[in-house]
């Protein structure tokens, strides 16, 4: 038994026999030719054939694997039409009087050597595409049929040095249990396609190719990236149980995709997802989250050279609102300062940046910056269920002055003839203890609260969470934090306002029983956690969670609360 580690590129565990995929190297010899036209004609025929083949693969891929995977082959079609590549090949045939396959090989290698040297993932992927296309063209010129992966007749784990997108697309899914490659990472084409096809895969497993022969048995762990060569019977036996468990867990979790989020005793609440940019939406839709609990708008401002325009922001907000249809989308206004800086905006050095001119404070000091964002948000409001959330509000006066500002901007827009959805909501993030303590005052005037645990914990314990020396004071399970959150929830519910939670604590499955006991209306987390939390919530009864919370509120410290919670979780029936 021997273990080789690669990159877990696609989830799943398989135990099976290896099929070693050997690519016969095409032998390309430079030949001097006399009949140039004949050589050019050979090239044209190979271009036509390749084009037709790729078009068929593209259609099949589109049907079986969707647009993302099919886009790879659209790119291949573009390469076949690329003037620099094709004219370069033709010119070489004509100028040097060489054979077509040699010309294809030479010109593509010129591009490959440039592309492969570049430190840019997008371009390196194009290199893989060019290689794939060139191989197909040369095979047609030479009239050789490549040994495909479509002729498998029993279930196997494919072992290859590398798999081209074409190889992966031609895999007969019925017989491919998984694949292992020496080359490639998590974002290589083959890894992406493996995930789409839901076939476990390990990529980047160096030195595995020479170790194995067709028929050898392996255990492939696509989660950890481990490959166990020649496993013992004991290892196989214990892995078989893990495989079974994995399949069952996954199936169960998938069932929750279309379920309403609710507790075992049927109390509904929302499980929302946090996003950083509009592209993250696809993942959110995939897990069927009930809404967006936190859209951090900082990404729109960071990594660029000047402030984003109203149009740019509008289009980002519109995309997210439209894609979420009528589900609530909480968009947080600009939250910079503290540890988040902008290259193009000099913030004066502060002694305590976390206690300084950041988030809503900065927006109040720079109304012009804030106005652009609010205009974009209000214009986008007609495309969905917009919730505007203000970060770092400390006092009711701050909230009122921001609200006035927003109303002023709304009136301006309307007088310009721009449509605004009057149903949009305005809420605040609770992350400063003064706001939590005055929650009953705020609750009368805001539409919602969202508790930002990361900062609330930092400010409650007066401990910088980035400072290692004091990081032990980051204590989400401490009774004082639970008491604070409990107060906020009570204050909100008294005024019939909803209250959510975003931040690390929301996605912590260990915290879930307490959060359900606290009666939060919404919990927001990263998209991959949504189904796990939804599944766990369905096993917890709200009544039990409330008892757990009551007990926790009376404890002295975090350890005692954790003990209670762990006990609670082990006693949940499966």
């Amino acid at each position, binding site marked *: 038994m021997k273990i080789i580690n690669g990159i877990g590129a696609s989830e799943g565990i398989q135990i099976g026999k290896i099929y070693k995929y050997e690519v016969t190297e095409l032998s390309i010899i430079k030949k001097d030719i006399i009949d140039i036209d004949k050589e050019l004609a050979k090239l044209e025929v190979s271009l036509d054939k390749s084009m037709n083949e790729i078009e068929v693969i593209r259609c099949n891929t589109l049907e079986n694997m969707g647009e993302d995977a099919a886009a790879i082959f659209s790119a291949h079609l*573009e*390469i076949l039409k*690329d*003037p*620099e*590549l094709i*004219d370069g090949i033709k010119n070489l045939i004509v100028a040097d009087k060489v054979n077509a396959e040699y010309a294809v090989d030479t010109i593509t290698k010129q*591009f490959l050597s*440039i*592309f492969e040297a*570049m430190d*840019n993932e*997008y*371009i390196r992927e*194009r290199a893989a595409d*060019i290689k794939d296309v060139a191989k197909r063209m040369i095979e047609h010129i030479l009239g050789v049929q490549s040994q495909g992966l479509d002729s498998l007749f029993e279930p196997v784990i494919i072992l290859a040095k590398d798999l081209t997108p074409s190889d992966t697309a031609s895999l007969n899914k019925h017989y491919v249990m998984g694949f292992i490659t020496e080359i490639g990472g998590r974002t290589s084409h083959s890894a992406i396609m493996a995930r789409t096809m839901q076939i476990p895969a390990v990529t980047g497993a160096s030195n595995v190719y020479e170790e194995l022969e067709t028929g050898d048995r392996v255990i492939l762990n696509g989660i950890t990236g481990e490959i166990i060569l020649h496993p013992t019977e004991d290892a196989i036996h214990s892995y078989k149980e893990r495989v079974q468990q994995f399949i069952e867990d996954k199936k169960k979790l998938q069932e929750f995709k279309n379920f309403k989020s609710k507790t075992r005793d049927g109390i509904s609440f929302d499980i929302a997802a946090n996003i950083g940019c509009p592209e993250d939406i696809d993942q959110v839709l995939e897990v069927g989250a009930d809404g967006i609990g936190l859209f951090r708008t900082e990404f729109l401002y960071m*990594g*660029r*050279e000047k402030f*984003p325009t109203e149009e*740019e922001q509008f289009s980002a907000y519109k995309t997210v609102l439209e894609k979420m249809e009528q589900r609530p989308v909480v968009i947080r206004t600009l939250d910079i300062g503290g540890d988040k800086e902008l290259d193009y905006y000099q913030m004066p050095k502060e002694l305590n940046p976390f206690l300084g001119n950041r988030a809503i404070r900065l927006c109040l000091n720079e109304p012009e910056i804030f106005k652009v964002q609010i205009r974009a948000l209000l214009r986008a409001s007609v495309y969905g269920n917009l919730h505007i959330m203000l970060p770092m509000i400390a006092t009711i006066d701050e909230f009122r002055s921001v609200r006035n500002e927003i109303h002023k901007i709304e009136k301006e827009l309307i007088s310009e003839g721009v449509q605004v959805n009057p149903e949009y909501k305005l809420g605040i993030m609770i992350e400063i203890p003064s706001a939590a303590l005055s929650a009953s005052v705020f609750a009368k005037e805001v539409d919602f609260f969202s508790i930002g645990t990361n900062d609330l914990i930092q400010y409650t314990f007066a401990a910088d969470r980035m400072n290692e020396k004091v990081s032990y004071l980051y204590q989400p399970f401490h009774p004082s934090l639970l008491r604070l959150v409990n107060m906020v929830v009570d204050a909100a519910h008294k005024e019939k306002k909803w209250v959510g939670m975003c931040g690390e604590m929301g996605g912590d499955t260990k915290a879930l029983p307490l959060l359900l006991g606290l009666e939060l209306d919404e919990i927001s987390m990263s998209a991959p956690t949504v189904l796990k939390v939804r599944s766990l919530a369905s096993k917890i009864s709200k009544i039990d969670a409330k008892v757990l919370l009551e007990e926790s509120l009376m404890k002295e410290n975090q350890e005692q609360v954790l003990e209670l919670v762990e006990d609670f979780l082990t006693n949940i029936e499966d």
Partner: protein
Amino acid sequence: MVKQTVEVTNPTGLHARPAADFIKIASSLPCDVSIEKNGKEVNAKSILGLLALAIAKGDCIDIITDGEGEQDGLKKLVDFVKNIKE
């Protein structure tokens, strides 16, 4: 033939989406389009050629159009490069 020098200010240069968008515009023009960087000239209707130039932020490139509608075409492409924001 007309020609204009532009500085690429986009932080990610002329890669990925901006490159693909550039090709789309260039390909829609009736005239010939090429780009020259450090003395190397490529057909600007070719994504591979464009990527091979490895145009990064701060690079100065010459955009050259030749033939029908060369003036308008040049303006379109120059405006595009000046306004890319990734």
